[in-house]
């Protein structure tokens, strides 16, 4: 189910005949991917290309006493074996901190470990060979002498004085701490009729992009230029960092992103092994390819969500929520990731808890600690699922305690739709949200009362089903407040250049990138609509630092809202420029003319005057026939960044309907609903599919996904047979509905939609499981909700 309401604010440039805005149109260029003709980094081969295989630490924490590569060097196909110390000659280390995260600290990280390894899977040497298989053969013969050190693996004891300090220079294992205290929490709790506490535990999980991380780095010594082919979400960020640490100018580094086999925040960071591949290319003066295999992916792709969060909520008997209080603890691995840092997720948790609700009383502490496990960092819906699960879990516990329906307690506490602009208890500013409209729509879509009746009837037959509700807010369209103010050279603005070619088609270069979200499509839809040309005439170029304007890329749900607005503004200029030339050719005025369906027409009667192809012919080949003094500019460039609000918040609500087999602890998902508000919808189908895909990532976390470490810091399920991702057989159909509150920060009015599904799915499922288990008095606040955990909560095992 999808519905959109018309945007009452007229968008002049968009509200045109034949507009593609708000329409479902197929994405351009899907045939390439469906016919196996895509070009992913793993497909790229270059002349003289060699493959790098990393020898990785089997220990969570150890001193490197020595590396003996003599036998490995004799193996067939081996080109070079390079240690961390040797590679340091061409690449400098980095420290992943941001200055606006006060007090944050981390230690310098090298592309390849020198002297010491800090997690199982950290690279200790690079084997460069003619093939991956030969590289693996040789890597088995590289003998590394380790002296094992105490591994810090339990975040709960990481700060104890008796626990080893991972980086002595830092003094302790605390990477970052944030405290927030708003309103009068103690008083509010004291005045509450009930105060409920719970500890929420989240399984560490990871992105499992189907295409693993991959890079081909090609240092051309004769040109003194490095070309990096990589599936990055942020090519200009990679360009900046590669240049910085290899001692190059940015102009010497080109980053090319072709097709990308899934990203979800996994491919927006700087990984040590990818930096090593760039450096090896420079060292060896030839193209070097690194494709992580699946085991390496599990051991080195960023993990996320390893949090334990204590929460407290106060509530009055009439359902008024009086206060929220949380104490969040997260373990991030031995280094803060570069350059976005690994403190953002905890920071987001503090920002987002309690966000949908009226109460201003909110106290929070978040601590981020180092451990000897793989690094953690930002993955889709950073912090949102934790904040949402804690908030919505507490709200349901409060409702249960006072005997109120979960919908009703939300109705009584969600911020009113006419209360905006306003701020959250954590101080975030909301421009316009629509919690109540969204909740009302959700209740209609799921036929809440009928579902409750069905639940009750089935309970009598010993069938235990649950309904779970989760309201959420979502951070999108981040401004420089996210990273730029902290000193990271990650652009928050995006640029678009759009030009008319000599046959009247349009070429559009944008700094946002495509990993399947539909960046290319939404850009073409905006350009086509604003200009008045059909989409088949619009070609979009993205993912190449040599051939696109400078910009942030696609992450944090910013592509449509920021890149889309840049496209709109650039195309408006091009349209004006075209109409100026047309007016000169037609001896008319620009105001009397319009472009409709590839033809310049007269506004009043729509009469066709000149095809764009003819106009382009004249401009490019017969400028001599133009009136004197006319210099056509059939190319326009514009950039955009939100300035008024640091983030464009969106909101929504999810519901889960599921069955719990109380004998076995197995959960069967029956149905899932989402209503969300991402402002102007450019392509309803793309938005709905972002939501659905996001929901399923959240459902994976809710039921299946967890990186299981043992007490020595060994990841024990680093393969796809043991790490369970959501597959089609267990996933439900998902109904999606919308409320539309455009942001007034841009003419387009679009906010993001990439995080919404993931943000609330696990909370809805957990609440539904607890709803199903209500007759048994069992409450679970831990995900994934495995049969083992459910049976244990039920006291059956």
């Amino acid at each position, binding site marked *: 189910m999808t519905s959109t309401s018309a945007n009452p604010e007229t968008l002049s440039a968009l509200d045109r005949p034949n507009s593609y805005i708000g329409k479902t149109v197929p994405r351009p260029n899907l045939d390439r991917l469906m016919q196996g003709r895509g070009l992913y980094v793993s497909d790229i081969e270059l002349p003289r290309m060699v493959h790098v295989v990393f020898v990785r630490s089997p220990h969570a924490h150890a001193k490197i006493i020595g590396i003996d590569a003599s036998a490995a060097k004799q193996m067939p196909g081996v080109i070079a074996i390079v240690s961390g110390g040797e590679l340091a000659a061409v690449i400098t280390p980095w420290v992943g901190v941001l200055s606006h995260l006060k007090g944050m600290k981390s230690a310098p990280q090298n592309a390849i470990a020198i002297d010491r390894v800090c997690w199982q899977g950290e690279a200790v040497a690079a084997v460069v060979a003619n093939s*991956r*298989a030969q590289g*693996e*053969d040789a890597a*088995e013969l590289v003998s590394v002498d380790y002296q094992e050190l105490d591994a810090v693996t339990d975040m709960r004891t990481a700060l104890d004085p008796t626990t080893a300090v991972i980086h002595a220079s830092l003094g302790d294992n605390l990477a970052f701490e944030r405290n927030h205290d708003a309103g009068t929490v103690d008083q509010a709790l004291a005045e509450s009729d009930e105060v409920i506490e719970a500890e929420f535990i989240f399984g560490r999980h990871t992105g499992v992009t189907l295409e693993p991380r991959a890079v081909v780095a090609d240092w051309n010594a004769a040109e003194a230029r490095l070309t990096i082919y990589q599936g990055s979400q942020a090519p200009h960020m990679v360009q900046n960092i590669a240049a910085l640490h290899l001692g190059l100018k940015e102009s010497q580094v080109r980053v090319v992103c072709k097709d990308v086999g899934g990203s979800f925040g996994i491919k927006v960071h700087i990984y040590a092994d990818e930096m090593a591949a760039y450096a090896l290319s420079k060292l060896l003066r030839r193209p070097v390819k690194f494709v992580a*295999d*699946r*085991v390496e992916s599990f051991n080195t792709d960023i993990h996320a969500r390893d949090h334990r969060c204590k929460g407290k909520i106060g509530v009055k008997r009439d359902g008024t929520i009086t206060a929220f209080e949380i104490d969040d603890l997260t373990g991030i691995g031995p280094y803060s990731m570069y350059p976005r840092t690994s403190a953002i997720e905890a920071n987001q948790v503090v920002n987002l808890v309690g966000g949908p609700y009226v109460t201003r009383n909110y106290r929070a502490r978040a601590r981020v600690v180092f451990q000897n496990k793989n690094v953690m960092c930002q993955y889709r819906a950073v912090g949102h699922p934790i904040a949402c699960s804690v908030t919505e879990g507490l709200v349901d516990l409060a409702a249960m305690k006072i005997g109120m329906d979960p919908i009703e307690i939300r109705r009584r506490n969600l911020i009113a739709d006419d209360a905006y602009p306003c701020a959250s208890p954590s101080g975030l500013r909301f421009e316009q949200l629509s919690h109540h409209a969204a909740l009302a729509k959700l209740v209609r879509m799921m036929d809440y009362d009928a579902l409750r009746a069905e639940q009750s009837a089935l309970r009598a037959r*010993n069938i235990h089903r649950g309904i779970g509700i989760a309201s959420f807010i979502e951070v999108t369209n981040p401004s420089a407040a996210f990273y730029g103010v902290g000193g990271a050279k990650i652009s928050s603005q995006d640029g678009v250049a759009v030009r008319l070619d000599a046959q009247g088609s349009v070429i559009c270069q944008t700094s946002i990138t495509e990993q399947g979200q539909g960046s290319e499509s939404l850009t073409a839809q905006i350009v086509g609509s604003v200009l008045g040309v059909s989409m088949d005439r619009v070609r979009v170029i993205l993912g190449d630092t040599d051939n696109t304007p400078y910009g942030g890329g696609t992450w944090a749900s910013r592509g449509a809202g920021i890149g889309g607005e840049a496209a709109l503004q650039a195309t408006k200029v091009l349209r004006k420029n075209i109409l100026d030339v047309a007016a000169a050719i037609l001896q008319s005025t620009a105001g009397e003319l319009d472009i409709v369906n590839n033809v310049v027409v007269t506004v009043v009667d729509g009469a066709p005057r000149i095809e764009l192809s003819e106009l382009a012919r004249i401009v490019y080949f017969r400028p001599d026939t133009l009136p004197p003094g006319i210099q056509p500019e059939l190319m326009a460039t514009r950039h955009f960044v939100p300035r008024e609000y640091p983030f464009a918040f969106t909101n929504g609500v999810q519901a889960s309907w599921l069955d719990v087999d*109380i*004998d*076995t*602890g*197995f959960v069967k998902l029956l149905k899932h609903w989402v209503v969300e508000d991402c402002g102007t919808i450019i392509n309803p189908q793309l938005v709905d599919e972002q939501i659905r895909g996001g929901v399923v990532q959240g459902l994976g976390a809710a039921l*299946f996904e967890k990186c*299981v470490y043992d007490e020595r810091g060994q990841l*024990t*399920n680093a*393969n796809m*047979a*043991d790490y*369970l991702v959501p*597959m089609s*057989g*267990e996933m439900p159909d998902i109904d999606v509905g919308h409320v539309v509150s455009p942001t007034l920060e841009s003419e387009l009015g679009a906010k993001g939609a990439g995080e919404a599904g993931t943000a609330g799915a696990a909370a809805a499922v957990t609440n539904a499981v607890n709803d199903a288990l209500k007759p048994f008095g069992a409450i679970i606040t831990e995900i994934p909700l*495995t*049969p*083992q955990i459910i*049976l244990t909560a039920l*006291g*059956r*095992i």
Partner: protein
Amino acid sequence: MKASAFDYARATSVAHALELLTAHGERAKVLAGGQSLLPAMNLRLMAPEFIVDIGELAELRGVTVKGDVLTIGALTRHADLLKSPEIAAHAPLLRDAVAHVAHPAIRNRGTIGGSLAQADPASELPACMLALDATIIARGPRGERRIAADEFFAGIYETALAPQELLIAVELPVQPKDSTHYFHEFARRHGDYAIVGLAAQALVRDGRFADLRLGFFAVGDRPLLARSAGELIDVAVTPAVLAEASSALDEELSPLEDQQATPAMRRHLAKVLLMRCVSSLLSRPDLCTGVSA
């Protein structure tokens, strides 16, 4: 993630395969469907020096019925079992079980012989062999051997097969017309290895079990033919009788711990399966009233 190098020979006959196995002994691995062997080799968990590919041995493939014996060639694929009219008619338990094995693309390659020789304690077919009272036929340098299914499985990935022996076929008694069966497993996702599973074959006469063979899997280091089934034969099954059988089953189990389940959970789920199986086979919903620890 690339397999280590190995030498390879494509066997042209069973005799040729046996020659190769004799020549290369423990250095060699037999490649049938390869759906367990190749993942292990890709992950370099195994690095055999020599691979004997028996995939071309057409004589090892197929299902035949002679008298009251059903013979299944070792190279008969899971997909073949699923589609075979002989299996559907004479051992439908196998058809039901195979539907739970992995996914279509895997079932198109995986073979019954490979599955039995692999002897993964969590896999379906070994337990079915126990429930169906199968005989496993192996051929080696000294000729053919017939091994009862409950003597074949010796531990995790361990069987009674010698390195020089090849599993040739399995023989199953054709199930009587009025025989019934039950198959179920608890797996986290479609096609995953089971946390606990049960393959059962029964004769029900006048509301009682005249015969009941319960093949549990993923409850220990090898599939288990539950002796406790005996408590349910030729008696009027009441909740009390079932509870006693359940306790007796508990005594027989020695489940292992892994990431999916503790031993306690496996014991619990095995008992749930027993209850559901008996309830289903006897068409007695009243027996299915929840299981307590």
